[in-house]
């Protein structure tokens, strides 16, 4: 008898069939990985199991009993817990409050905070976490927050735990710790479902893998009977080359140089004494755990935030510290923002109008202060064609495009303006494999034209495969920099978490 059995699950959203006759099952005391690309239906399937979506068809049984799960409340009652990719925690509340909310210990009419604290304390000790339940969640690191999420599920006595992309935001060390915890929970008889698209994690920790593609089950295999490459092929549906390295062969003079960059937030340094440079024809990767100053670095280097101290040169031209984003753009610094929906695009505006965003005051598009509508339209159609943006025409809203195509609009808009340097932040986040390959290809092409790219990415694999050199950022400081291929994974992991390795400067 399986702990969970999902059979023939189908789920349609307006215009999209997210799940098509999917089967999935997991045993007691098993770690089962759910593998698939973005949009393959992994999260949707698990949201169905967790009662957040109702399937259009199919049956679910828990421990052999057929059930209908209409809400997370019912899922929790059935012993199902979920750790979401975006943590479901309230930063301003304490750890204890976050964990017990919804199932609070009471003292008459009142909430019994003391009992909550002692219960959480005991629970944490049982699984070997050291936390202070009185602390507010906003003071915690990402890894700690994830533990709170796991505790939240355990507090409710769940036996089936779903983790949605749990390693996406963790450092290599934290990933190891997480896996230890998961194995420990498995020993206690829990069933753990791991949603992921990272192959080596599956090979390391899971007992079984189910692969989804385009909302369909492709198959369930045992990791010991397969290889990472085979899984990748199942996931994408064709041969893929993984982790291709493509180093620059033609590095030129210094093109972009940042000296003594300091940025304070109140009296705390967000960025301290940053020195880095980019040469013609190279990609410099910024490696680091999210929240170590990357966002601030991007904002300063694109004119969105004024540094307290900095000397910034592009070629021979020095950019003043008071310059606004418009002057950075004019100086030839292109910016692919971290979050395309938030900073990169105006989603409820046409592709055409998004194509000139940031370049809407250049002479090419304006005559006597009036927009040249025909020129802009032609330009947009040109970008759609050149950058293989899948769109019916240039008048539709950019928000109706897929993530990959939205990202191509940004990439096209910037590369077409022929900047000298591009600050590329998370250029392939939330984008399908085809678009990732295309975007990487475009970046390399741009680099080979003798331009430079500063690449900031949470995906260490992306940094390693694209960058010629790496800078490692930890707590707002550059802790190491050097040629990519001189760093091992272990080195990077240690440096990213504030450790030191011998022979640091290479």
């Amino acid at each position: 008898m399986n702990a969970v059995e999902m059979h023939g699950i189908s789920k349609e959203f307006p215009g999209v069939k997210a799940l098509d006759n999917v089967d999935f099952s997991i045993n007691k005391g098993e770690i089962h990985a759910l593998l698939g690309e973005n949009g393959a239906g992994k999260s949707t399937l698990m949201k169905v199991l967790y009662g957040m979506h109702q399937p259009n068809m199919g049956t679910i049984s828990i421990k052999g009993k057929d059930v209908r799960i209409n809400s997370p409340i019912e899922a929790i009652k059935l012993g199902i817990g979920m750790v979401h990719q975006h943590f479901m925690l309230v930063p301003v509340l304490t750890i204890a409050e976050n964990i017990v909310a919804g199932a609070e210990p009471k003292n008459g009419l009142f909430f019994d905070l003391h009992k909550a604290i002692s219960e959480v304390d005991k629970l944490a000790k049982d699984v070997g976490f050291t936390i202070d339940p009185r602390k507010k969640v906003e003071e915690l690191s990402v890894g700690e927050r994830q533990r709170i999420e796991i505790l939240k599920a355990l507090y409710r006595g769940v036996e089936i735990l779903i983790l949605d992309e749990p390693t996406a935001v963790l450092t290599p060390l934290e990933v190891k710790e997480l896996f230890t915890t998961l194995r420990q929970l498995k020993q206690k008889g829990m069933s753990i479902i791991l949603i992921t698209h990272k192959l080596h994690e599956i090979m390391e920790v899971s007992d079984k893998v189910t692969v989804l593609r385009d909302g369909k089950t492709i198959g369930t295999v045992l990791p010991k009977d397969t290889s990472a490459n085979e899984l990748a092929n199942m996931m994408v549906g064709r041969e893929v080359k993984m982790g291709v390295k493509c180093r620059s062969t033609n590095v030129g003079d210094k093109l972009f140089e940042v000296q003594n960059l300091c940025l304070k937030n109140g009296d705390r340094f967000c960025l301290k004494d940053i020195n880095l440079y980019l040469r013609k024809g190279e990609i410099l990767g910024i490696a680091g755990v999210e929240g170590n100053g990357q966002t601030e670095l991007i904002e300063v280097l694109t004119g969105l935030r004024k540094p307290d101290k900095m000397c910034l040169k592009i070629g021979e031209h020095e950019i003043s510290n008071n310059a606004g984003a418009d002057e950075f753009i004019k100086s030839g610094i292109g910016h692919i923002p971290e979050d395309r929906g938030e900073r990169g695009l105006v989603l409820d505006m046409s592709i055409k109008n998004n194509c000139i965003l940031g370049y809407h005051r250049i002479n090419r598009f304006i005559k006597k202060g009036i927009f040249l509508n025909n020129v802009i339209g032609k330009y947009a159609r040109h970008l759609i064609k050149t950058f293989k943006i899948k769109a019916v025409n240039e008048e539709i809203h950019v928000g109706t495009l897929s993530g990959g195509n939205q990202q191509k609009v940004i990439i096209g808009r910037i590369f077409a303006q022929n900047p000298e340097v591009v600050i590329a932040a998370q250029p392939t986040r939330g984008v399908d494999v085809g678009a990732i390959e295309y975007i990487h290809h475009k970046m390399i092409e741009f680099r080979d034209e003798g331009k430079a790219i500063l690449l900031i990415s949470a995906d260490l694999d992306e940094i390693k495969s694209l960058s010629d050199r790496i800078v490692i950022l930890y707590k707002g400081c550059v802790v190491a920099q050097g040629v990519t291929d001189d760093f091992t994974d272990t080195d990077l992991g240690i440096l990213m978490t504030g450790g030191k390795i011998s022979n640091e400067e290479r």
Partner: protein
Amino acid sequence: MGSLLDKIDIILISTIRMSVPITLAAVAGVFSARAGIMALGLEGMMLAGAFCAALGSYIAGNVLIGLLAGIIGGVIISLFHGILTIRYKVDHVISGIGLNLLASGITTVLLQTIWGNRGNSPEVNSISPIHIPILGEISPLVCVMILVVILSWIVIFKTTFGLRLRMVGEHPKAASTVGINVNRVKYISVIITGILAGLSGAYLSIDHVNLFVREMTAGRGYIAVVVNILGRYNPVGALGGGLLFGFADSIQLVLSGDNIPGQLIQMIPYIVTLLVLMFAVRYIRPPAGLGKNVED
């Protein structure tokens, strides 16, 4: 000298009196805000409360029934705001503005239908003051206000409902994933908001004076929104803010005897609000989910 002391006395008493409607409405706003709902419709709720209270007192000749009617009036508008924002995902600001316009239109029309007068209702029975040592004659609603502030603080910060309420306002999705019925919490808080705002309106029409006047809330609902923010979404803070505005209001009474044009004096509370918005509000962090609609 004697006249100065008299004036201080008048200011003190009228500060307390004028702080009642603002404080009650601001505490009303606290419940909505803590649940993530922007209570921009407070003005309309107060107006409906004021009108219904006067009507209730007029028909029944009984102030308690008037008070109850006022509460019902506030709850009706508040529930509309709740249904529009929670169920139909209407922008909180637009819904608030729309309901304020609606309350203003409806009360003015009904004023004419019922009493045949576009400006004000006839005089109705009003709440009689009670005698309290030291303070002297004072409205029982002043005591109610203090009680409301204390009880609200306990409910929000010391009960399980309060914890759930705060969670809903900060992160509704997090709340729903731990099995909290988000909409139920929101509707409860909306009803509490309506009750308190209705009470606040009733105070204006059957306690502060003894009749309903067209548009008699005169922006106090909006001031209460600011007081709510100024008080850091905390009932005790709302009382502090309420007293500040009560003071600004009471200055009017004192100055109006001194040949200063009424229009200039009437500008005081609004200018105080603007100053507060300029200098105090930006240091305050609102509940993270305030005013946002969650798509299901």
